[in-house]
């Protein structure tokens, strides 16, 4: 029983330190694994890239003519649209978190993870972190496409980068919502089907693509306050210029609130998952 005694001693001694470092360390290990899969199965990345590309082209050329006149004077539709596309990309991308986790649950891999001495949050945070890394890539690409279509930064590069960080923070928060969806439904097809009815109203009943002022009154109330609009608005201010502080704080408050609710819920589901 000496081996046992040794194990007990080390776990007790290291407990305080590892309580903080272990979730990060294990989460990064799982994120590493998820990113390898992304590199090795490039279609995952290709499809999460094509979709926002289609959106940006469609909106630019289909709705551009209609929406343009409704915009504040001096604002071109491309400059209005690209921040919205960033946010839409991050939101739709977060669906991958649900699909990825649900896929893992179907293989025996989740069972193995649950029997390992790793942080209970690591499987989820490893997934959301990998999805965050994927978003960095997709947003960079969308920026390049935006520039090709005539998008320009009006408020300086630092503010623009701040806007990008806000988009990434929002994508990360949305990933935690979909981590919960993925754990709850447990299979990838259902996860995908369950995601759309949640995502579509959030993305379309928002200021991501069109100004809220064109919507009926009852919808405006929802559209003005929901997180997609708040984030799009904050990013837009950071890109186009203007007093940014309130909008940014409101967007960050949404992100913090979402993570505070959904991260513990996701970990709770992971602990209980059968």
């Amino acid at each position, binding site marked *: 029983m000496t081996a046992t005694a040794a194990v007990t001693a080390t776990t007790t001694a290291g407990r305080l330190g590892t309580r903080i470092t272990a979730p990060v360390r294990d989460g990064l290990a799982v994120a590493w694994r998820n990113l390898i899969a992304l590199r090795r199965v490039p279609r995952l990345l290709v499809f999460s890239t094509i979709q926002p590309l289609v959106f940006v082209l469609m909106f630019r050329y289909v709705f551009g003519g209609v929406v343009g006149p409704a915009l504040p004077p001096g604002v071109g539709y491309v400059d209005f649209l690209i921040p919205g596309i960033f946010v839409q990309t991050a939101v739709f991308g977060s669906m991958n978190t649900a699909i990825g986790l649900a896929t893992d649950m179907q293989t*025996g891999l989740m069972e193995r993870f*649950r*029997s*390992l001495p790793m942080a209970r949050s690591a499987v989820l945070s490893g997934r959301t972190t990998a999805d965050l890394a994927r978003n960095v890539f997709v947003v960079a690409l969308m920026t390049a496409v935006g520039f090709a279509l005539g998008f320009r930064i009006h408020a300086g590069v630092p503010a623009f980068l701040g806007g990008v960080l806000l988009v990434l923070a929002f994508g990360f928060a949305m990933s935690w919502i979909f981590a919960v969806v993925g754990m709850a439904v447990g299979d990838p097809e259902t996860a995908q089907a369950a995601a759309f009815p949640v995502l579509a109203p959030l993305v379309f009943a928002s200021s991501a693509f069109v100004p809220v002022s064109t919507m009926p009154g009852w919808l405006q109330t929802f559209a003005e306050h929901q997180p997609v609009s708040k984030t799009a608005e904050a990013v837009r201010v950071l890109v186009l210029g203007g007093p940014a502080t309130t909008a940014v704080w409101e967007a960050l408050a949404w992100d913090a609130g979402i993570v505070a609710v959904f991260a513990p819920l996701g970990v709770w589901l992971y602990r209980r998952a059968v």
Partner: protein
Amino acid sequence: MGQAAISVVGLSKRFGAVTALDGIDFDVPAGSIFGLLGPNGAGKTTAIRILTTILRPSGGRAVVLGHDVVREAATVRRLIGLAGQYAAVDPNLTGRENLRLIGRLTQLPRPRIRPRAAELLDRFDLADVGDRPVRTYSGGLRRRLDIAAALVPDPPVLFLDEPTTGLDPHSRTALWDLIRELVRDGTTVLLTTQYLEEADRLAGRVVVVNEGRIIADDTPAALKTRLGNTVIELGMGDETRASQAAGLLTERLGEPPEREGVLLRLASRDGSRLLLDVLHSLESSRLVPHTVTVRESSLDDVFLALTGHRTQPVRSAQDGADSPATPGGTP
């Protein structure tokens, strides 16, 4: 409890109205191989999942190397390795990356991770395919990698859930050798299996599980002797001849053979003597069987001896009684 590496007392698990485990008790001595033997759905996997902290029991308790699997789950996870029925490895990672991932997640010291992965790939004959994504592996390769993954942290207690199901005979024997080798080095192994032969080859002690309960706790040899090592199956061709032969053999042997349609089944400790006897007396009554099969007793036979029924309603292939309209069929 002395040197028990695993100790299980009154362990039960219910899923809603279904009772998967109905109070089981057993002790596994340290450094031994212990078998949980039972048909599909007997509760073997549920027991393994509780012991590996994946599931919480509904009642009773289980202790691994002195640590309660519920209250000290985190400590237990540092002492165990698990390889399941479904190879739990990432198909998109290479074999080597899978092992390194487990190394990181079991907190192996950083410099030890790469050498340990290489060492296990060698030991499991996976060095050649170690840098290929696992999705290109055959089932046997995956299974080997899965077991290698369980061994990354060199756990003192290893759980193997039906480790050889679906393996070809060669891989199966190789795996048996490997398990024996681990135990020689001091590892305690608890394995589940549906094969009496496997339990017999490996385990020093076996519990037979049926519908969540233990119905026998013995050495594999003793289990086999309980009903006889050899099973003889006689296919009589048609019902009339089967009844005649059954009557004759009951008279000869003092007890009736088991009958399943046109098939008669006998078990004995002395198979060759019984076979000679039986064929001789059948021939003298002009009841020569159409088919004769002689085999070692299986889990199914043990089940019959212990419970009075087989693990599932099987018929034997040779008399082709496969039609849904078999006599005695349920409405």
